[in-house]
């Protein structure tokens, strides 16, 4: 098993004149719970789309589990699971039908697909609505189903774009436990989230992207140590984040301008 799960070299994506991802060199070790952070519009979702094959890079290269994505996309996709930004669900199927569809797409045999589908539906508390179409699921239920579909084939890398958004606290707790267990067994998890507390609690390593450029990468301890003048180990991820993306000082909107609200 390769030591490096995800590696990119000068990964770049342009949309016309806009450079959404600007020469990113990312390195994620196998088995890491990796948080990918950035302010709105920084390039997080674009990066995750490139890494999962939903978007082609303008330039640069990437290897997942040591395999070049451009050369062997099918081989790479077999090893990864994805919860994309829009969840990617076929809304006219029921939850069970969708999981069976995905399982077979990833090459699982029918019996295994069937068994895993039922187990995942139970775990995600979706089994009590066997005939409900995904279109009629709530947002949180859809999110849980997308997560179930992403893990049904036992991926070695799991890409999660805002996985806990809309998921209730009870289910979120169970999911976090599941994800932690997966990393213990060697699965690499690449996660984006705006909720920094979740990232801080779950992730061992973090990268921060700002205006398309990777501005920080490393373990939480390394990032804490890199901030001069702060309180060392007591520094929260939020403080690190604000410090790095430059929102702590002059760029932050001045509340005094809204004096009529106070």
């Amino acid at each position, binding site marked *: 098993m390769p030591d490096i799960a995800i590696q990119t070299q000068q990964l770049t994506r342009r949309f016309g004149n806009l450079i959404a991802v600007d020469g990113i060199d990312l390195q994620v070790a196998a088995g890491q719970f990796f948080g990918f952070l950035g302010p709105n519009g920084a390039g997080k979702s674009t990066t995750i789309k490139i890494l*999962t094959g939903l978007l082609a890079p303008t330039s640069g290269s990437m290897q997942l589990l040591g395999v070049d994505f451009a050369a062997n996309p099918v081989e790479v996709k077999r090893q990864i699971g994805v919860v994309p930004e829009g969840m990617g669900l076929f809304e006219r199927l029921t939850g069970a039908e969708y999981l069976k569809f995905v399982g077979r*797409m990833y*090459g699982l045999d029918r019996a295994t697909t069937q068994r895993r589908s039922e187990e995942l539906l139970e775990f995600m508390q979706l089994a009590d609505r066997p005939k409900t179409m995904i279109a009629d699921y709530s947002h949180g239920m859809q999110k849980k189903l997308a997560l179930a579909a992403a893990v049904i084939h036992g991926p070695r890398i799991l890409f999660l774009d805002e996985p806990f958004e809309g998921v209730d606290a009870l289910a979120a707790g169970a999911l976090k436990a599941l994800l932690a267990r997966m990393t213990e067994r060697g699965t690499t998890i690449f996660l984006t989230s705006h909720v920094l507390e979740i990232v801080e609690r779950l992730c061992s390593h973090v990268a921060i992207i700002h205006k398309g450029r990777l501005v920080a990468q490393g373990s939480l301890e390394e990032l804490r140590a890199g901030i001069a003048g702060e309180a060392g180990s007591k520094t929260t991820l939020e403080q690190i984040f604000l410090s790095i993306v430059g929102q702590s000082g002059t760029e932050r909107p001045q509340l005094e301008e809204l004096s009529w609200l106070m």
Partner: protein
Amino acid sequence: MADVTQSVSVFEQIRLVAGLRWLILRNSLRKKNNRLDLIGLIFAGVLGGILVIGLSFAFYAGAYTFVSHGRPGWIASLFWGIFLFWQIFPVFVAGFGANFEFRTLLRFPLSLRAFYIISLAYGLADFSALASVCWLLSMTAGATVAKPGVLPAMLLIVAAFVLLNVTIERLIGSWLERLLARRRTREIFFGLFVLSMISLNFLTPLMQRYGASARPVFLRLLPYFAWLPPSLAGRAVAAVIRLQPAGFLVSSAVLVLYLVLFSALLWQRFAAQYRGEELSETAAPARAAIRTIQVKDDGPDRLSLLSPQVAEIVRKEFRYLTRNGFAYLSLLMPPLLILIFSMNSTGWHLTRNGRGVSAEIFFPGMMAYLILILMAPAYNSFAYEGRGIQTYFTAPLRFRDVLLGKNLMLLFVLSLEIVLSMVMLLWRVGLPSAHMLVATCAAIIFTIVGQLTIANWSSITFPRKMEFGRMQGQRQSGMAVLVAFGAQILMGSISAAILFTGKWTGNLWLPAQAFIFLAAAAVAGYFASLDALTKLAEKKKEVLIEALCR
């Protein structure tokens, strides 16, 4: 603390809502496609204007004639025409979805009274209301010119009639909004709409057969219509002209009673909306049932000849088909169309060999027509995938499997439809000669498979998202329509040329041979195209995802 110091008047709120609707329209024009839509809207507006003005003259002339020729009672028929248009036209338009939902205004500090008045005011700004008011004013003018003394009463009755109509229209609209908020009812409505459109084709043969016997039944029912609003409005006007004040008072009073009753019902509906009526269709939270996991055996895989990926896509397509009311109904259409065409051209009764209809022409002609209809969706085959399209790009499969799966399902449906249609043709018209039958069957394979290659290319290159059970904004991409049109003209021209050559040379089996050769070439071309289309899909995946994940 909020520093709002004064409440906003109803008039100001109406003005603000008008401004909001204008901004929505103006901002939507920033997109090129919407600007093109505006041209269509202006064109439709001009046509609508011509229709309204033309009919205004007709209503003027009608009212003038009825009053001046001593038949004021007939004015009720004009009120009926306007009433039916005002109430039915918006129902059809409602199926296409609302551009602006008044419910969204409820987040603002509006009183129920203001909400009610704003809704009525905008009810009067709809096309059907504007047109109806124009026609009513034309009627008033016509009646006044014929008998000037009728003007005050006519104005009163028209005012009450307008208020009543706008109230009923809003009431129906608010109930429709409630019903159409749910996916299932929206789909049923859509299905019924399509079915009613198809059913209109049966009117001519049904009238031919039952017209005479239905007339007495209709005449017996007529008196019951006398107590409905349009008849009452007509009777009130007639009573004024005949100088019967009691008749005028009774008819007007009942008309006002209707107004009060429907206003109360509408108030009740709006009050429910105002209180925060739930129209959401998402599943309510439910306690998770305690279940034991049972691994069920699905039985033998009926699609084991296909690769697991292709088989799953075929299954998924089948499930989508069975859950799409419109698609279901469209499956009924081909045999129905054959029935309609054969009835329209030969009447209700038709013997096996179809009086006056040659199977040699009718059979290939109908098959060509059916393929024309049935192949159209293939040119935008990813329309209903929605966000699911991402799965095709994140899953470890080649896009050729996706195309194959989708095409196989389409071929299955087409085969079923063609067999059903052939059975219907056999019953209605009879089968053509053997050489024509073979030529037609080979031509079917050629045109379907030949079009599939082009349709796959079009689906990847010009995708357009569509949603089940919705009609608003459910248009194919203009380019996809052009491609489909071009491909079908090409296939049709080739087929016609071959059939003509067969006729011209006197070689009856020549078309069959030519079509068999072309069918084989089309099948080979189809399989050869799959890899190229897979590369194209990879290249165009951003376009596909962007278009379908909106």
